């Protein structure tokens, strides 16, 4: 079972690295933000799997909760900031 968690963590790391391509070449700023949001939500599962891999799930689960709340607040704040009519979203 340890080996299963190890291999699924490796596969999940490769899956997390895929949206970085969209972060680099996204046409608008919203595409970059969406890909960043996807990376942040998938990292939660990776932290949970690493906690089961190290047999310290009681410590890693608190890190996961804090990370979830922080990522959600950051994404929502940037979305509300870009929604206001004063900010410009043009690419440079």
């Amino acid at each position: 079972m340890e080996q299963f968690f190890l291999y699924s963590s490796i596969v999940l790391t490769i899956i997390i690295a895929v949206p970085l391509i969209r972060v680099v070449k996204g046409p608008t700023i919203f595409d970059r933000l969406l890909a960043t949001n996807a990376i942040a939500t998938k990292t939660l599962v990776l932290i949970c799997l690493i906690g089961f891999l190290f047999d310290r799930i009681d410590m890693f689960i608190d890190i996961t909760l804090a990370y979830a709340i922080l990522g959600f607040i950051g994404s929502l704040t940037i979305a509300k900031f870009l929604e206001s009519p004063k900010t410009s979203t043009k690419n440079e």
Partner: protein
Amino acid sequence: MSELQIILSVFLVMSGILLMLVGSIGILRLPDFFSRTHAVSKSDTLGIICVIFGLIIYEGFTQSSLKLFLIILFIVLSNPVGSHALGRAALKKGLTPFFSSDENEEDKL
């Protein structure tokens, strides 16, 4: 730990990882922003639910599994809300969808 518990947990974790792979490919392959929000909000949420539910079954009935259940509740509430906020901001900023009714506005991809 019984055999049925391990089989169910492995099945749920593998199906969740497959769903997250589908979501990652969708972010790369779909044509515009408003269709990429589908890949982030729907398939990623279902993948996370599957993986963490499999971990709950592997853990058993302890305090950590209760916290994992709280993570599932928080993800179900927060991930579609974030995607919807980004989509509404993009729509207010004048980003046109790919399959819009106007024929002339296809230069904004």
